[in-house]
């Protein structure tokens, strides 16, 4: 990137809530069912049908808002956002406009060991649209001959979370999206699956010359189906805008589509026209009032969130990078850590073994879940501390534990891995190696220091690898001097 250009990025996230029923009717919320099987007069907008708000969805958006440190509006209303599109049966979407349920929060993200606080502008409640399939000419929207519509998704509760334009790089954009997804997943309010579209990300991007310059013209980019493609798309768009501006061109305010295969953003070329949504308050729904008691109650149900967990791990003495990895690791690994520490293991060592060797083992064995006795892991760490296991022997013990061969001590014994701690036995092995290798002793005394490595090797062989190499090394040097 040329010197002086600063990207300014805001991200809009749409989260489908995993309630049992839809936002304003009693149809089931269910992914992957036969088309148009979860539809009723309300979500199909048949004449006379009226919406009734799903209270669970409101509870959950408040939960999301609180997890994102938002202010919760004591009073808010629904609005109609009017536009015509085939996947929108009412010709308006029930959404919120000037008074969203949640506003002015923040989310901390970590990129390369640095924490950045990203502001949350608002989180509002709305309903999802149906799904359209563009038929003919390979499904390309411009060449379609017919649009097929499935309204199973129409009316599914949708929360839109809008960040402030506080994001400054593609890597931060990705970290923000990943961190937010994790928070949502841990709240248990959404499946939060990118591949199923239950969480979707759009980015607004502009560039400006330095942090004091005015914001440039922003472009919205859509269709990023993974965190990787979000990062690539943002990166591409930043570079495109800079190149355009440096060639004395102009940036047009538009929506661009990320083309994963070509790895470029292309203009959607749709006539946005005047995006005149003619918002007005939804007369079929009454206002929402969140009392301080309700808010407090929901606050008391919030689980520990990744950033809180990270802070707690740091306080236990875990390294920053390990704390970060572990705090966003899956539940099985986290509870293994908690239980191992609970069984008396040193937190830092437990975190390092779990995020390091346990994860590596799972990858090697291609398993995604582990069922492991945390007391054995704690025992193994204790044995390392007591010099009963070398680092490499501990890896073998861990392998045995993960394979269900028994406790750490049982595995260490059956695989014959316990390190010799009897100094008398080590010393006699050292003595006999020195006696058997007078040449080496001579060379060492003549100044050939590296010969000590050979002697350590001999002692290790004599003890079947069970002596602590460090202790052997120290003892040899002592006896040779």
């Amino acid at each position, binding site marked *: 990137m040329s010197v002086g250009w600063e990207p300014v990025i805001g991200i809009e996230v749409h989260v489908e809530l995993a309630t049992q029923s839809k936002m304003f009717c*009693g149809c089931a919320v269910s992914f992957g069912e036969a088309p148009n099987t979860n539809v*009723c007069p309300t979500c199909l907008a048949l004449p006379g049908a009226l919406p009734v708000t799903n209270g669970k969805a409101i509870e959950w958006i408040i939960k999301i808002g609180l997890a994102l440190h938002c202010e919760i509006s004591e009073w808010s209303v629904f609005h109609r956002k009017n536009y015509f599109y085939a996947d929108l049966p009412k010709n308006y979407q029930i959404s919120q406009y000037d008074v969203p349920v949640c506003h002015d929060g923040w989310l901390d993200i970590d990129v390369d060991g640095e924490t950045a606080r990203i502001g949350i502008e608002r989180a509002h409640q709305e309903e999802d649209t149906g799904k359209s399939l563009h038929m003919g000419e390979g499904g390309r929207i411009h060449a379609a001959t017919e649009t097929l519509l499935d309204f199973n998704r129409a009316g599914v509760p949708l929360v839109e979370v809008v960040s402030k334009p506080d994001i400054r790089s593609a890597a931060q954009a990705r970290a923000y999206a990943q961190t937010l997804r994790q928070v949502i997943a841990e709240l248990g309010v959404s499946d939060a699956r990118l591949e199923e579209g239950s969480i979707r990300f759009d980015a607004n991007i502009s560039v400006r010359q330095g942090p004091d310059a005015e914001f440039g013209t922003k472009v919205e980019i859509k269709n990023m189906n993974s965190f990787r493609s979000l990062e690539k798309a943002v990166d591409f768009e930043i570079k495109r805008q800079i190149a355009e501006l440096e060639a004395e061109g102009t940036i047009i305010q538009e929506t661009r589509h990320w083309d994963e295969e070509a790895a470029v953003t292309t203009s959607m070329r749709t006539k946005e026209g005047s995006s005149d949504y003619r918002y007005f308050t939804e007369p079929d729904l009454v*206002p929402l009032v969140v009392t301080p008691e309700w808010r407090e109650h929901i606050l008391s149900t919030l689980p520990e969130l990744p950033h809180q967990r990270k802070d707690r791990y740091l306080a236990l003495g875990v390294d920053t990078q390990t704390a970060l990895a572990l705090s966003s690791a899956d539940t099985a690994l986290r509870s293994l850590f908690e239980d191992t520490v609970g069984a008396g293991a040193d937190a830092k060592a437990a975190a390092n073994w779990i995020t390091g060797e346990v994860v590596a083992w799972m990858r090697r064995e291609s398993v995604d879940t582990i069922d492991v006795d945390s007391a054995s892991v704690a025992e193994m760490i204790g044995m390392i501390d007591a010099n009963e296991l070398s680092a490499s022997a501990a890896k073998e013990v861990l392998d045995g534990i993960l394979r269900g061969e028994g406790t750490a001590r049982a595995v260490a014994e059956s695989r014959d891995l316990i390190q010799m701690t009897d100094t008398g036995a080590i010393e006699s092995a050292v003595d006999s190696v020195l006696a058997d290798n007078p040449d080496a002793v001579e060379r060492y005394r003549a100044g050939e220091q590296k010969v000590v490595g050979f002697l350590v090797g001999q002692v290790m062989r004599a003890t079947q690898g069970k002596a602590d190499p460090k202790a052997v090394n120290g003892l040899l040097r002592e006896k040779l001097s």
Partner: protein
Amino acid sequence: MDRSTLLPMPIDIDIAHVARLARLDLPEDELDTLRSQLSAILEHAAKVQSLDTEGVEPSNHPLGFVNAFREDVVTGSLDRDEVLAMAPEARDGYFAAPPAMSQE
């Protein structure tokens, strides 16, 4: 507050824009008539602005109650064949519509 500035003013309407937003295909020769009729309606509605509302609580809904929620339970859906029978076109369980780009 000086309400004289809120007294009904002639309201100028871009009738073609309004028609486009509502997807109405209005005949050219009726545009002027419709424009003045719609202006008259808006001017009439704007009279409300001139009322003295000092000390009147703003209200958002005539019923005056809040938080009408339903339990999060599935109460069932319609039969698909019945639903699709109402549509002008249906295919393979889907509603069929003209291509999205031509709907603009």
